[in-house]
């Protein structure tokens, strides 16, 4: 108290002008700051369809995701064993969640937990979005030992083995890349047979 002699401000428990004013000021501050909480909600919008929500459907054709052929359908004849490419379902290329890595391997190379019924003639496809922090995985081809090729995310070096269901064989990724069914149709073009077999994108 600045002025101790007045007694008005120091009375115990009594209602004083000073206390009422203080109460009003505190209530005003509390409501003012309280109203800011509604702002926090406004400033953090949730967009519909954000995050990784894939909309691949059975029968969707695969098209090249980047490079010179970007947007063209993938033909089985263009692939040799050991080749891989990034692909989108035709007409749904705007959604990054749909990005897959299509790899052609020897059929004999597949081991559990790969789901062989989702592969065709050695073609196998996995989500290309790393389950660590969402970068796109790349195919590291080993020309001398094709069996030693693997998928790697170049951001933090997570390594996935496509022969064994994209199991994590190195690095910080928490779970495997989700497999997605593909087959070669009558025209020799690759098409999806269904959706992803597990969660895709960063697991955070």
């Amino acid at each position, binding site marked *: 108290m600045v002025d101790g002699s007045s007694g008005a401000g120091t009375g115990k428990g009594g209602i004083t002008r000073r206390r009422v004013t203080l109460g009003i000021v505190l209530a005003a501050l509390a409501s003012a700051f309280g109203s800011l909480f509604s702002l*926090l909600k406004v*400033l*953090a*919008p*949730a*967009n519909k369809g*954000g*995050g990784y929500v894939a909309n691949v459907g059975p029968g969707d054709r695969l098209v090249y*995701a*980047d490079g010179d052929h970007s947007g063209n359908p993938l033909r089985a004849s263009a692939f040799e064993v050991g080749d891989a490419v*990034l692909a*989108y379902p035709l007409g749904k290329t705007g959604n*990054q969640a749909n*990005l897959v890595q299509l790899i052609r391997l020897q059929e004999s190379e597949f081991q559990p937990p790969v789901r062989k019924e989702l592969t065709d003639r050695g073609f196998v496809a996995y989500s*290309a979005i790393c389950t*660590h*922090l*969402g*970068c*796109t*995985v*790349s195919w590291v081809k080993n020309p001398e030992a094709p069996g030693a090729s693997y998928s790697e*995310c*170049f*951001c*933090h*070096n*997570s390594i996935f083995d496509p022969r064994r269901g994209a199991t*994590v064989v*190195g*690095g*910080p*990724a*928490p*779970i495997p890349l989700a497999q997605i069914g593909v087959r070669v149709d009558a025209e020799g073009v690759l098409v999806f047979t269904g959706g992803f077999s597990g969660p895709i994108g*960063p*697991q*955070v």
Partner: protein
Amino acid sequence: MIFKWIDERLELGKFKEKFLGKTFPTHPTFLLGEVALFAFVTLVITGLFLGLLYEPSAREVSLFGAMVPAAYASVVNIDLLPLGLIVRRIHHWSAMLMIAAILCHLARVYFTSAYRKPREINWLIGLGLLGVTMGAAFTGYLLPYSQFSLTATSIAYYISRSVPWIGDWIARLLFAGDFPAASTVPRFFFLHVMLVPALLVSLVGLHLLVLVKQKHIEPEGNRLRREAEGGRRLIGIPVWPEQSVVSLALFFFMLGVVTMMATYIPLNPIETYGPPSPSTPVMRPDWYFLPIYGFLKLVPGDLSIAIAGGRITPETIGGVLFPGFLGLLLIAVPFLDRVSMSQNYLVNPLRRPVMTSLGLAVVFFLCMTTTAGYIDVLHITPAAMAIVLVLATVVIWLGAYLLLRFHNRTDKRGNHGKT
């Protein structure tokens, strides 16, 4: 004439007496903070140029026949302007220089224990400045909207999301929705050119105000001079004219060096990175984020802890807990290493085995986590790197501590313990 007119109204004479005569103690390391400040000035000036020409939008526009985001196109167009590329590089190099200068300044203050009473407040403000500066650098990453920008920002987005319980909300608040959202670039642009610089300016002002109020710390030599000559005033040079000349010379020297680097050393070549694309090539962040980047590579993927409805993932450990722990450690420093008497002279780091060896160990640890960012080119497994990292840090820590203890013991015998 004009001076007299202004002086009669603003009393500049008084101001001159009070502030321009302030003493600056002289020591080469006292200029590190100034370098940071001058780098910031350079950033503001070059930022004005870039901000006037930049378009913070993700809408697709045509650039040389290809459809690219407008933000990317506008930065490519800046690069094509006369001096445009150089200004952008000066901006980027100055940002790196600013962070480097702040870190060196921090190291100087730490190792000479200049954070001790009465300067704890300025230590905390300084840490705030470091954090905000890194925030400024980070919000600048996204703006060119290249493939590099998108990847770096997307990683940060998922790191924010990995915060237990409130991660989703934090991520949406920072990135204005679920990244990549069209609203993220405008949000980052505003943060980068308005909110973060405003914070920086306020904190810099506060930092300097506290410095002026508390008086500058002095080199150890000044104590001896004072004991010999008497007097209580600071020993050094006045703000005007000596210190101003030194500072001005430093500013132009810095500007010269940065401009030369900007001219000859390519940096953030967005034309090479290209606009956003589906594939992610090998890319590393700027050097000051490399410790976090490297640490993220070392945390094993199956390390996931569920607590009270939240989840601590490898991303949380590498991207949130690790830098958070470092920050808390720095905040705690002046409260762990306390003194009862105010300390107004630099302390020789060699005389403080515990704090100096600890500081060296942390610096070494950060260098090693930076190295961990290169395990892919060094062909080291994360586990091996982690073991080397921990062992080597402990060895450095103990080694430095024992060496300093030994040095002080032998030195005391010769010097009769005079410090």
